[in-house]
C-alpha cells in the first residue's frame, strides 16, 4: 500500500510546510493528491483521482471510517473557519463514517457531520451540513447551515437559510440508497488493493491483451486509428524540427491506391513547442 503525502508548497499565505498526518489503517490510493495539514483518521478510504489540498485554507480533518470516493476535490479558502467536534477551528471538517461520493466538491469553510452522505458531483461551500444528512446528486449547498438529519434531493440548490430549514427529514429508504453506494466502494476497495499487488494483476493484464484482438467492430465515423509513431521516430522528428528543418509528407490514400494516388501533405515548420 503506497501512501503518498506531500508537504504543501510554500505560498504567500502559508510558509509552513505541514505534512498530512495519516493513520496507519487508512487507505490512501497512490493516484490521489494529498497535501498540507490534513489529519486522516483510522480506516479512512481515499480513492484514486482525489485532490485534497490544504495549501490555502487549513487544516482539514477527515474522521474515522469516512469514505472519499474517486474524483473528489477538497480545498479551502484562505479565510473562514468552522468549529469541529473537538472545538478546534478547521477549514474543512468531515466527521466519522461519512461518505463523500464521486466528483463531489467540498470547499472550505465547510463542516460535514458524522454519517453524512454527499452525492455525486454535489458541492458544499461555506456551509455546515449537520450529522446524518443525505445530500443527493448534483446539488449545491452554499452559505447555509443544514440541520442534522435532513434530506437534500438531487439537483437542489440550497443557498438561503429558509430553504435549508424547510428540507425534509431523511427516511429509511434514503438511508438504504446511500448505504448501497457505500457498499459499491467497499467492493472497489478490494480492487485497489489487488491493483497494487503485482501477483494479483498479472493474469488480468494477460487476459486484456487477448481480448483486445477479439473486437473487430468498426464504425464509419472514426476509422482512423491513432497515428502513433515509435518514440524513436518522434524523437528524431522533433530534433530535426528543433534544428530548423522543415519536413514534407507524401502519402497514398489507402482506398484509392493506384498510380498517381500519392498526395502531398505540405511542409511543417519547426516550432519549439511541438
Amino acid at each position, binding site marked *: 500500500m503506497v501512501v503518498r503525502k506531500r508537504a504543501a508548497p510554500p505560498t504567500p499565505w502559508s510558509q509552513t510546510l505541514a505534512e498530512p498526518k495519516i493513520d496507519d489503517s487508512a487507505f490512501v490510493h497512490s493516484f490521489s493528491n494529498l497535501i498540507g495539514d490534513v489529519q486522516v483518521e483510522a480506516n479512512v478510504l481515499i480513492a484514486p483521482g482525489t485532490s485534497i489540498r490544504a495549501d490555502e485554507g487549513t487544516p482539514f480533518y477527515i474522521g474515522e471510517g469516512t469514505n472519499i470516493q474517486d474524483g473528489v476535490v477538497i480545498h479551502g479558502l484562505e479565510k473562514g473557519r468552522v468549529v469541529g467536534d473537538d472545538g478546534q477551528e478547521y477549514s474543512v471538517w468531515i466527521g466519522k463514517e461519512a461518505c463523500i461520493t464521486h466528483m463531489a466538491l467540498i470547499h472550505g469553510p465547510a463542516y460535514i457531520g458524522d454519517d453524512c452522505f454527499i452525492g455525486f458531483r454535489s458541492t458544499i461551500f461555506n456551509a455546515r451540513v449537520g450529522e446524518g444528512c443525505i445530500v*443527493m446528486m448534483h446539488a449545491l449547498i452554499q452559505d447555509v447551515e443544514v440541520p442534522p438529519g435532513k434530506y437534500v434531493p438531487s439537483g437542489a440548490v440550497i443557498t438561503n437559510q429558509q430553504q435549508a430549514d424547510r428540507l425534509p427529514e431523511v427516511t429509511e429508504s434514503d438511508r438504504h440508497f446511500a448505504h448501497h453506494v457505500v457498499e459499491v466502494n467497499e467492493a472497489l476497495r478490494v480492487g485497489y488493493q489487488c491493483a497494487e499487488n503485482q501477483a494479483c494483476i498479472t493474469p488480468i493484464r494477460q487476459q486484456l491483451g487477448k481480448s483486445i484482438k477479439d473486437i473487430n467492430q468498426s464504425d464509419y465515423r472514426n*476509422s482512423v486509428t491513432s497515428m502513433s509513431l515509435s518514440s524513436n521516430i518522434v524523437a528524431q522528428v522533433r530534433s530535426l524540427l528543433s534544428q530548423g528543418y522543415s519536413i514534407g509528407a507524401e502519402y497514398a490514400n489507402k482506398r484509392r491506391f493506384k498510380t498517381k494516388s500519392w498526395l502531398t501533405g505540405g511542409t511543417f515548420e519547426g516550432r519549439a513547442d511541438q
Partner: protein
Amino acid sequence: MPLPLIQPPSRSEVSIIGEVIIHEGAVVAPGTILQAAPDCRIVIHQGACIGMGTLINAYQGDIEIKSGAMLGAGVLIVGQGTIGQNVCLGSCTTVINTSIKSGTTIEAGSLVGDTSRQFPEKESASS
C-alpha cells in the same frame, strides 16, 4: 441548476484498475479513471472518445462504450450499462446504472438514472 465545474485533473495519467479493455482506435484523454470492480469489465470500443477527467466505475456488471461514442470532459458513469454507438454525452454528465441508446445526445450537466427520492418543490434535472 448551476452547471457543475470542470475540475482540471489532479494527475495527467490515465488510471486503470481492474479488467478494462480499451480498443486500439479509442482515445482516452488525460486524468481519466477507469475502474472495474472484481468480476466486472469496462470495454471501450474503437473510435470512442473519452474526454478529460472522465470517471467510469463498473459495478455489478459491465460498462461498454460503443464505437463512435463521445464523452465530454468530466463525465461520470457508475454501475453498469452500455453507451451506444455515436452517443454524445455533454460535459459533466452523470450516468448511473443506465444504458443510453445509439445516436442519443445528452445535454451537458445532465443526471441520468438517478432513482433517489425527489423533493416536490424542485425542478427535476432529469431522472
